[in-house]
């Protein structure tokens, strides 16, 4: 069995817990802002190329190649362009962005500044969910201090480049993690997503070109600039370079945020980093990514954290959460909690998600209460399929994922509760 140090790597978390997160001097002493200084001497295209070569992919859940996104915005003619950091982190099971903002806020700011320079932006926003009061305070204070030292604001470090960032908060809506719902919220409205295409890179906030990335994605940029794309790409796997911040929770002994190189298996994360299931119990299932992710049985836990590996298995890694659920819990009860979440968080805009989520719960309850029929099973599968195929945005499309995965890996939990089968 591997050791903890073999399974972790400190690219993003090198300073976490070792410095005073509020102190800019600590950050600089620990190597901070070297990357920005370097970036300011490079051309925009060179920086974008470096990110491209690193093969960095979005860490929010979609996994879109970051370099390609940056290049698209760099090449867009329309101005002004805006930078947005998605710090909404509403996906249950995830707390890594909170961890980064509370322990190394300057890294995020530096990353954003580098990105803004590369694409020619003068204004940025960090959208932090309303419940994250401490990160809001810390990041706001860090921005102020960075401004005082000339690391952000007008004529950064004496250059021609000016970039300003505003912290905005959400007010309790998971949907605002979706990029267009986030933009609507930034514009002071209810967070209901817009039609895509056009994508935010063409028409985002104020209908201007906007690049939106996750906290973790931006936080990787200083390392990539400092150490180079090659060194970054050497970590992880061919398709998934660098590290993944894993939020480990549920029934494990050691919950927390772990920075693992891609390629580590889920089992290694649970057994080594998590120090095993609490109470020495058996695993019932593990949900990967968050509430919108698949639930895997014990037999699948040797799967590697790798975009391609997951895609080959028709699974999604999401934002990287690993939620361990032990044998005490009933599969259908867990699914019910997940569906309650989606029912509560649906924005209500489109028919399949608004009506579908609550209908799924109703049908699910029939299984839980042992009153389901074979037709109910067919209806469950039909409805899930329609939601996946026709929902307006990712929330409705991903809401049935957990349920569908349990239908695949724990089918007998459903079939054993069908009335006719019971009476057979």
């Amino acid at each position, binding site marked *: 069995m591997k050791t903890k140090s073999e399974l972790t790597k400190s690219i993003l978390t090198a300073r976490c817990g070792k410095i005073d997160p509020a102190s800019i001097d600590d950050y600089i002493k620990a190597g901070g802002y070297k990357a920005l200084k370097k970036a300011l001497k490079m051309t925009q295209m060179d920086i974008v190329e470096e990110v491209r070569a690193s093969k960095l992919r979005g860490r929010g859940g979609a996994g879109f190649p970051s370099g390609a996104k940056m290049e698209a915005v760099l090449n867009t003619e329309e101005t002004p362009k805006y930078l947005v950091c998605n710090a909404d*982190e*509403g*996906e*249950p*099971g*995830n*707390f890594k*962005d*909170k961890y980064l903002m509370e322990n190394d806020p300057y890294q995020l700011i530096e990353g954003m500044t580098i990105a803004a320079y590369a694409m020619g932006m003068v204004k940025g926003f960090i959208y932090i*969910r*309303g*419940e*994250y*009061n*401490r990160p809001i305070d810390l990041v706001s204070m860090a921005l102020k201090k960075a401004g005082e030292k000339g690391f952000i604001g007008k004529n950064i470090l004496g250059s021609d480049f000016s970039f300003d960032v505003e912290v*905005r*908060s*959400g*007010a*309790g*809506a*998971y949907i605002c993690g979706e990029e267009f719902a986030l933009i609507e*919220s*930034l*514009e*002071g*409205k*209810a*967070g209901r997503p817009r039609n895509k295409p056009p994508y935010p890179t063409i028409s985002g906030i104020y209908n201007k070109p906007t690049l939106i990335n996750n906290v973790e994605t931006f936080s990787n940029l200083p390392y990539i600039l400092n150490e180079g794309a090659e060194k970054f790409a050497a970590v992880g796997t061919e398709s998934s370079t660098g590290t993944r911040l894993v*939020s*480990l*929770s*549920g*029934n494990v002994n050691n*919950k*927390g*945020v772990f920075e693992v190189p891609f390629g580590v298996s889920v089992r290694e994360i649970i057994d080594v980093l998590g120090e095993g299931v609490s109470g020495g119990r058996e695993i019932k299932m593990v*949900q990967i990514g968050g*509430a919108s992710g698949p639930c895997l049985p014990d037999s699948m836990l040797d799967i590697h954290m790798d975009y391609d590996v997951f895609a080959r298995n028709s699974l999604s890694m999401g934002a990287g*959460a690993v*939620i*361990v*659920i*032990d044998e005490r*819990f009933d599969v259908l009860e*867990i699914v019910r*909690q*997940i569906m*309650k*979440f989606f029912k*509560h*968080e649906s*924005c209500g805009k489109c028919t399949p998600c608004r009506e579908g989520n609550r209908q799924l719960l109703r049908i699910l309850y029939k299984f839980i209460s042992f009153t389901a029929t074979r037709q109910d099973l067919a209806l469950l599968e039909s409805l899930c399929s329609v939601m996946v195929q026709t929902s307006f945005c990712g929330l409705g499309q991903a809401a049935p994922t957990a349920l569908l995965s349990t239908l695949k890996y724990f089918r007998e939990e459903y079939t054993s509760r069908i009335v006719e089968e019971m009476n057979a």
Partner: protein
Amino acid sequence: MQLKSIIEKYGRSSENLIHILLEYQSEKESNHISEDEVRRVADELNVSQSRVYSIITFYSLFSTTPRGKYVIQVCGDVPCYVNGSVDVLRELENILGISPGETTQDRLFTVERTSCIGCCDIAPAMRIGEELYGNLTPEMIAKTISLYRRKYNEDKE
């Protein structure tokens, strides 16, 4: 703070509606936004009342009906659920005599079920006001409630 000063603080633009409303709401013991206040905000920012109302009914942190001074949000999502969030709610019901959605008679506490608040590593967790509390046991919950009661009485004097 007066509404006008809150608006000056964040900037007189409809973009800042969410911040303005959050702060406006938090200033009140009843932790809610009334009809009158919706009208006032709409007038000050030159937007329709419907826009303001649509915001406070869309986002979970707002309430259009009076709540307690301390709103206790208990997370019920899977990471907290498998770590005993149901017990947390039960304990709160034992101590305060209220279920989720209700407010105590003395208007001090409201209990609400909330979606994940990012405290999965200290599950089961709850949020009171702007503070986060985790690894909750019945003793801790009782202690926390007493702390708030004491704080309230001290502030009154």
